[in-house]
């Protein structure tokens, strides 16, 4: 089987993100960059699928700036077969999906795994768009994934409002990973050493046949702002019963929300 995984390098979940003085850019200098956590689940699921289907290979694609190399070294350390870095530091989620689609069209994967969202732009756009561009059916935010004995289809679970769906999908297919899909392994020392010997194929969007129009942002960003500051709230310092009575009164009469 041919298995593809898409990964993205993002600021860590706790990193403090500053907005530039003119409000036109996000300042990520000195911020720790990591593989988007959902992509780790995607990568692990690909490794599991390769273990099951003998003779499979895994191709990992990362679209982004130079830092993407960090993700790909991590992927090599985990034992994937090939890595492609599409150098497109300014690609938005849609442009990134076009880049990944261009790489994967020639690879012709049986399975593509992505994270359900990249935790920087939080669009949840990439997996569905990539599925559409590659004409693959997809499952969004799969919390479980099981290949059939003949690897021709898979069964996934997906949590939605009010319960859980069981979904059957025919391969070739694209799966986006929910937290808890699996328990991602850590690279071994041997894996890390091997990773140093591997090379990443680097492509530009132009080399993939994507022109400026294909890479243009879907929306024009006007600016960024930090979340609006909250004014200091009221702290009720009274014994539990009195505090509860006062809170209910405030919620009813001041906030008018209950």
């Amino acid at each position: 089987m041919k298995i593809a995984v898409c990964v993205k390098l993002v600021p860590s979940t706790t990193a403090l993100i500053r907005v530039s003085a003119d409000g036109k850019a996000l300042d990520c200098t000195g911020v720790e960059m990591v593989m988007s956590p959902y992509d780790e689940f995607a990568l692990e699921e690909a490794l599991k699928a390769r273990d099951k289907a003998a003779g499979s290979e895994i191709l990992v694609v990362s679209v982004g700036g130079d830092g993407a190399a960090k993700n790909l070294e991590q992927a090599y350390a985990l034992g994937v077969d090939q890595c492609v870095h599409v150098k497109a530091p300014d690609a938005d989620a849609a442009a990134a999906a076009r880049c990944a689609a261009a790489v994967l069209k020639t690879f012709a994967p049986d399975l593509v795994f992505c994270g359900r969202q990249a935790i920087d732009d939080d669009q949840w756009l990439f997996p569905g768009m990539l599925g559409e561009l590659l004409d693959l059916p997809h499952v969004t935010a799969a919390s479980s994934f099981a290949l059939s004995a003949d690897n021709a289809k898979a069964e996934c679970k997906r949590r939605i409002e009010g319960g859980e769906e069981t979904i059957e999908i025919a391969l070739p297919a694209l799966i986006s990973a929910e937290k808890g899909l699996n328990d991602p392994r850590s690279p071994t020392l041997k894996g890390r050493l091997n990773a140093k010997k591997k090379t990443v194929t680097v492509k530009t969007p132009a080399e993939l046949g994507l022109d400026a129009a294909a890479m243009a942002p879907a929306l024009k960003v006007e600016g960024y702002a930090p979340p609006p500051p909250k004014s200091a709230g009221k702290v009720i310092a009274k014994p539990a019963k009195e505090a509860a009575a006062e809170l209910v009164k405030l919620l009813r009469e001041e906030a008018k929300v209950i």
Partner: protein
Amino acid sequence: MGADILVVAEHKDGKVKKTACELLTVARTLAAARGGKVLAAVLGPGAGQAAAELGAWGAETVLVGEAGFEAYASLKWTRAICEAAAARRPAAILMSVSSLSRDLAGRVAARAQAALASDCTALSAEGDGFKIVRPMLAGRALVTAVHAGPGPLLATLRPNVFTAEKPAAPAAGTVEALACADDPRDQRVVVKSFAAGGGTRPELTEAAVVVSGGRSLGSADAFKVIYDLADALGAAAGASRAAVDAGYAPHSMQVGQTGKTVSPVLYIACGISGAIQHLAGMRTSKYIVAINTDPNAPIFKLADYGIVGDLFEVVPALTEEVNKAKA
């Protein structure tokens, strides 16, 4: 690109969801600014019954897909929405953030050549296009962006952020069939079964009030104090990741960066410290209440009202007060 606004209206067995009313309220403003009409597309079992209510909320035309839409299938739904968009050429397509839009939006955007803006907290008409504001980086930044074509805007809107207001006079709500022939290739991905769970409380992502508990609850049984307050308020119940990881609450209750994003009118955090990943999932709530023994817990920085105290004393007392106030 025309001037109409197409709303993909969600419903449950024909009952229109509040989030769809929020979309229609926004759509009316946008359509008025652009000189267009509000269209609604409604799919699935019971869709026909939803049409009249959608008209009452301002939909001039309701595109109904009921026959052939018995069971959810993402590829068929994508085709139906895209065919409606191709025929009507709306300036914008609106969906609410939900499992449905999370599943469809990327696909629809690719096929309809639309620009997707997910999880918007503001949307307005701006010149020939639209302006949106959306949180990114789990709410650590807000981005403002404009869309001016060439294709339509596809915006998903965060529930509870936009106020639903009925128009003074209902719109026609003229029903038209949303015809979309079956394609065997739609069967490549099918929902085989659905296991209901989550009980009788409102859906976390849609609820007006959410009561959440953290690690400090200490056990699944102890969560009863949270559920009791939630039930007294008619609220949904949530949890921090620490509580979920410890097995005190199911993952479906997790609020935060790796859980659900909620934006209720009232969020009550009980014994939750307020880690940045938790704040990511609830910081746009209108009113935040924190109950915590530690006066320095970060959650108090975001709280409109705080009680420094033991949740095992404060929360049952609150439940009692709420019940008293209701009586």
